[in-house]
Structure formats: structure tokens, C-alpha cells
């Protein structure tokens, strides 16, 4: 009897405990919102103070519209140098971030770690994207990412003060590269030993060869050259064409023969910011950087010169916000929902770019006075109305452009003739491209 009472008490206590647990848990389950915390990795923090942190604030705004989820974005500013190693290491162990800044053709095409955009968002993107930004965030005809900026191609920055000092009219920029060389000769200053102390044209010579290739691209394109054919999977006949050789001869000649560019004093961004270069080429983001870091520099921005044809708008760093495909389905669902909200909200996008003073990638907000009053606006408008130069958004882009950059450097440092270095580079690139046949 005592045993029965004992077991009866145990049973009752067990049932009570279970009931309390489920009752309490059930109420909890009904009240709790889903918690989604997205890691956002970007190496763009140093380019602009507001552009990337905006996404943290945007998550808060999104929460107010979607109270059923506790959505947040954790901003991780990754230094640009070595960002590929950090990204690839994380993706290798399946711990990649949910949102990251990167070149889609690399991270989707080569690594396969980007999630394709839902159709409705991609359709809306096609509707609102500026033409020059349309290829960014795409690979193989599929849209993955959101382009960062609308002016992500090089334009010509001139130092107004140095122009006037050299007797040049800052309102009459060079229209051709031949003219630019004449301007550069007047803008260049030398010390008693013949070393350049003020560059006529600030040439990129330091850093990874990939970047060297990128900065030299407009010259090749202006001479009518292309670097390769992805369809044919070859660079021979393209990279070492007579037009390409002429372009590289001009480019290397800025250093070697004309001596209007220096491989000593500093890289273009720093040099122009110090007021030691008359002309340099850079993307639209550089305007905000100059205003913040070199406010004493009086500068104007113009379209790139032409030669046999327009340089055209293009770039080799088509930065886009990509959604990683290694996060959970729930996280992915809400992240795309947030992006859907962002794309469908003109005001949110306008706030993003106005606060950052960055040229937007979207045609429905580009007419805001904040952007039309930017120094870069007219140059940008002229260039996007003109030629779309070739792009090289291919999976082995890093390797291929490194070879081109090295060849460009070899010519700049007179380690080979333009023809010889380009012949070798074309042959090496053919080997890489053959793997993709």
C-alpha cells in the first residue's frame, strides 16, 4: 500500500511538472519573435564612413516594419588587404558570413558561395538599376548581389590649382590621351637631380598587380584593344594585338620616355590628395574621400579622354553585396526579405546614398540634388551615355588580371618591350582559360 501511494505521488508530480513545462513553454513560443542575426563582412569601411554602417541602422528600421522577427546585422569591417584569405577561409569551413561585399563573379562563379537573388527582387533590380551598374552582382546571367555604387568606373580627376599654375585652363580638360600627355608635360615638376617631385599623371605602380591592371584598363580600351575573349577562352590575339601593344607603349612611356609619371613618389590616391599630381583616374567614391581627407585640394572631375575610341565605362572591381549560401534557410529568408524591403523603398535607398555622399546605383533616386550637385555627376552622366567598355567578370579574374598587371609593370620598369611582355602574358593566360573549356 505504501509503495502504491509513493508511486502515485511520483506520477502526480511528474504530470504536474510536465504540464507546467509545456504550458509555460507554449506561452513562450507564442510570444517569441524569430531571432535572426546576420554577420556582414565588408572591406569598404575605410572608403566611406557611413556607407557600410548604414546596414546596421537599416536592420533596425526593418524591424519596425517586421515585428515578428528580431533582425539585426553585425558589421565586421575587414581590412582590404588580405580580405580574400579571410573570406575563403571562412567559406572553406562552411562558416561564411550571411552578407558580404565582394565581386560576384569570383564568389559565385569560382567559389560557389553566393545565393541567387529571388526573381521578384531581381526583376525590381532590373527596373531601378542604372545601366552602368547593371552587370555588377551578376554571374552567368543570374543576379546575385546588389551593386554598391553607380560610379564604379574611372573618371579623370584634375587639380585645379596645379592646372592654373601650369598655365592650363581647368575648365578645358584633355579630350584625347595625346592631349593629356601634353598637359602632363606642363604639370610635371622635377628636382635638380631630374627626379619627379610633382607628377603630371599619377600612375599606379604599387600594390597588387591586379590593381595595376585595373588602373591601366582605360588605356587599352581607348586604343581599341580587349584583353581576352571568354567565349573563345583565349587571350592571344587580344591582349597582344597591335592596339594593345600601342596602348601599353603609351602607358609605359609616361614613366620611361615622357617622364611625366613617377614610380617613386607615391600611389595616385595619396599623391593627388597631397596636391602633388595634376591628373589622376579614379572611381566616384574618391570624391567623398578627398572632401573628407584633403579638403584643401580644389579639384574637378571629367570624363576619361579618348584616343581611337572612347575609353568607355568599365571596371575590374564590380563590388556588390552578396548573400552567402552557408547560412540557415531562416536567416536567408529574412535577409532576402530585408533586401526586398530595401529595394522597394526608394526613401531608404536615398537615405543610404545621401548620407554617404555616394553616387547611387539606382535610376529612381539619381536626380536628387545631393547627387546632381556632386562634382562627379556631369562626368558620370557623360560617360554612362557613351561607350560601355569590355568587362572581364570571369571566375579566374584574379589570376588573369594579376598576369596582365605584372606585364604592365614589366613594361613600366623597362624589363621588356610592350610586345614581348604582352606576348608572354597572353600565352600564360591561355593556359588558365583552357581549364574552363
Amino acid at each position, binding site marked *: 500500500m505504501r509503495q502504491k501511494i509513493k508511486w502515485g505521488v511520483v506520477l502526480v508530480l511528474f504530470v504536474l511538472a510536465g504540464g507546467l513545462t509545456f504550458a509555460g513553454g507554449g506561452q513562450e513560443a507564442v510570444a517569441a519573435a524569430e531571432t535572426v542575426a546576420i554577420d556582414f563582412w565588408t572591406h569598404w569601411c575605410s572608403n566611406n564612413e557611413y556607407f557600410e554602417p548604414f546596414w546596421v541602422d537599416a536592420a533596425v528600421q526593418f524591424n519596425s516594419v517586421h515585428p515578428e522577427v528580431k533582425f539585426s546585422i553585425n558589421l565586421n569591417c575587414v581590412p582590404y*588587404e*588580405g580580405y*580574400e*584569405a579571410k573570406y*575563403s*577561409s571562412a567559406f572553406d569551413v562552411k562558416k561564411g558570413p550571411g552578407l558580404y561585399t565582394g565581386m560576384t563573379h569570383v564568389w559565385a562563379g*569560382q*567559389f*560557389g558561395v553566393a545565393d541567387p537573388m529571388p526573381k521578384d527582387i531581381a526583376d525590381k533590380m532590373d527596373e531601378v538599376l542604372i545601366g552602368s551598374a547593371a552587370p555588377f552582382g551578376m554571374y552567368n546571367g543570374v543576379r546575385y548581389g546588389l551593386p554598391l555604387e553607380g560610379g564604379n568606373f574611372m573618371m579623370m580627376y584634375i587639380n585645379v590649382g596645379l592646372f592654373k599654375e601650369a598655365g592650363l585652363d581647368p575648365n578645358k580638360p584633355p579630350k584625347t590621351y595625346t592631349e593629356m600627355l601634353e598637359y602632363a608635360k606642363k604639370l610635371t615638376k622635377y628636382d635638380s637631380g631630374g627626379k619627379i617631385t610633382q607628377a603630371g599623371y599619377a600612375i599606379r*605602380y*604599387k*600594390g*597588387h598587380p*591586379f590593381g595595376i591592371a585595373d588602373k591601366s584598363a582605360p588605356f587599352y580600351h581607348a586604343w581599341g584593344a580587349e584583353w581576352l575573349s571568354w567565349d573563345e577562352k583565349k587571350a592571344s590575339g587580344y591582349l597582344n594585338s597591335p592596339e594593345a601593344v600601342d596602348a601599353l607603349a603609351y602607358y609605359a612611356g609616361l614613366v620611361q620616355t615622357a617622364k611625366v609619371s613617377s*614610380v*617613386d*613618389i*607615391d600611389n595616385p590616391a595619396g599623391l593627388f590628395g597631397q596636391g602633388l599630381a595634376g591628373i589622376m583616374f579614379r572611381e566616384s567614391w574618391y570624391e567623398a574621400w578627398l572632401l573628407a581627407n584633403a579638403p584643401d585640394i580644389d579639384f574637378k572631375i571629367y570624363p576619361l579622354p579618348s584616343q581611337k575610341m572612347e575609353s568607355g565605362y568599365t571596371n575590374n572591381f564590380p563590388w556588390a553585396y552578396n548573400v552567402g549560401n552557408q547560412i540557415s534557410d531562416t536567416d536567408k529568408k529574412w535577409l532576402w526579405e530585408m533586401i526586398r524591403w530595401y529595394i522597394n523603398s526608394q526613401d531608404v535607398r536615398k537615405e543610404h546614398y545621401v548620407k554617404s555622399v555616394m553616387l547611387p546605383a539606382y535610376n529612381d533616386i539619381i536626380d536628387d540634388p545631393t547627387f546632381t550637385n556632386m562634382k562627379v555627376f556631369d562626368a558620370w552622366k557623360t560617360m554612362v551615355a557613351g561607350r560601355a567598355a569590355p568587362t572581364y567578370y570571369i*571566375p*579566374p579574374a*584574379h*589570376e588573369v588580371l*594579376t598576369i596582365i598587371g*605584372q606585364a604592365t*609593370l*614589366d613594361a*613600366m*620598369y623597362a*624589363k621588356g618591350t610592350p610586345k614581348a611582355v604582352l606576348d608572354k602574358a597572353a600565352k600564360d593566360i591561355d593556359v588558365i582559360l583552357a*581549364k*574552363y573549356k
Partner: protein
Amino acid sequence: MKLGSTSYSRKLTLTGVFFILPVFLYFIVLYWYPLISAFVMSFQETIPGLELQFAGLKTYREVLADEDFWRSLVNTMLFAVQAVAADVLLALIISIALYNVPSASFRNVLTLLFVLPTLVSLAAAGFIWEWLFHPRFGLANQLLGLVGLPSLKFLQDENQVISSLAVINVWVRVGFSVLILLAGLQSIPDTYFDAAKVDGAKGLKLYWFITLPLLLPHLGAVLLLEVIFAVKIFDIVYVTTQGGPAGASDMLMLYLYNNAFRFYRIDKAAVTAVFIFLVLLAFGILQRRLLAGRRYEL
């Protein structure tokens, strides 16, 4: 439990195993596993889609046919020769000078000054020296100007970049070498010098016939460590020159890094890693054989 009984010795053995187990696991996970993985990957090739497939010696042939590999190998050897020679010679001179400082406390202070740069991270050292070596604003050129010498381009000149990197390396490493050599000098009994002096030896002869032979094991250790460090140089190069100008400071580790993380050519990176390992292993064996039996007991 009796001493000498089987269960006692088993217990002792087990205790020993447990003591070394953490270190053993550490070596397995952080040394042997990556080493074996690298060997395995070196016989594979990366194909589109980032898969690795068996390729036999194909990747070895590709790397050996790559001019960038040979350039980085030559640059690394040039750097290693300069950096190691300068480091060992300088460390020897400094340690002998410190050894002859009469006051022990003053000697310790001076030793600390030489050791301090060793505590600086290599990346920080690179940033510091990049500014010191700046062709326009750098302190180095200003000092050269003060003594009437022409300014140099240092890290921005193809012919000067490797020597400039060697200077940075010596600045970082010499303190560590000084510590080892100073300890070696202090371990030489005075009786040897007294006996040599009685025989009429003095000045440089003392160093040549007594000090250096007795210091040989320590010199060997310093040489081996510095060669390993120099061949594996990466941080300073990455932070300052990125292999430039125009590839003039491309080093083996930078070649490995670019292939692994920029181009995602894990196969080529693995071959480079295996190559570096074999080179350093060969050097270590050669050095040990040359110095074997050279411990002098006078």
C-alpha cells in the same frame, strides 16, 4: 605497490603518456595533419568549381615551369643570404661587446634595448620601416643627406628592395640572436681564456681559437633559426611591398599566399609548401652533419 613491479611501471608509463599527450595532440593537429594534408594536396589539381582531383606530378610540373615561382625562389635566397649573414655577424659583434661590459646591470639594460624590437610584431615593423624608408619623407634619407650621401629609394627600387627588407629583418631578429650568443659566451669557463693567455694568446687569437669554436653550437642554432625565419618571410613583405616593385621582392611565401588565397590554386600553394619544407629540412640535416662532432672540449 612495490617499486619495480609491473603494475607500478605501467602506472609510471601511463602517467608519462598523460603528461605528453597535450603536446602530442598539439603537434598532431597543428603540424603533422597540415603537413600530410599539404603533401596530399600537392599531388592534386584545382579544377573549376573548387574541387581537387588527383593529378600526380602535374602540379609539380606546372609550378616548376612557372617563372613567378623561380623569381620568388631567387628573391628568397638573395634575401636569406643577406639577412642571415648580417644578422649573425651583427649579433656576434653585439654579444661580444655586451659580454665585455663590466657592469652586469648595465649589460642587462643594453641587452634589453637590443631585444625590444623582437617584441614588435612583424607587420608593425613593416609599417614603421616603410615610413623610415620613404624616399621623400623618410628619416633614413634625411640622415643620409646630413652626411652628404645621396638619397635612396629603398623599398621602391628594384635593386635596393631586397637589401632594405633585409635591414628590417635584422632590426627585428638581431636581439633574439644576441640573447642566444650572449648566453653561449657566458657559459664558456674563464679557465680556457686563462690557460690561453698563459700560452701567449691575446686579442683576436683568443676569439678565433677559443671563443668561436666554443660558441659553435650556439652559432649553429642561431644560423638554423635565422635561415628558417628568412625563408619563411612573409609579413614584412606583404605589409611593405606586396612583392613589388615589379616583382622584385616576390618571395616564396607570398607566392604561396597569392596562389592559396587570391587565385584559389590550393594545389600550387601545397606544392610550394612542400618545397619550402624539403629545402629547410635539407638545410637542417646538412647543418647538423657539418657541425656534428664539432663540440670542442678543451
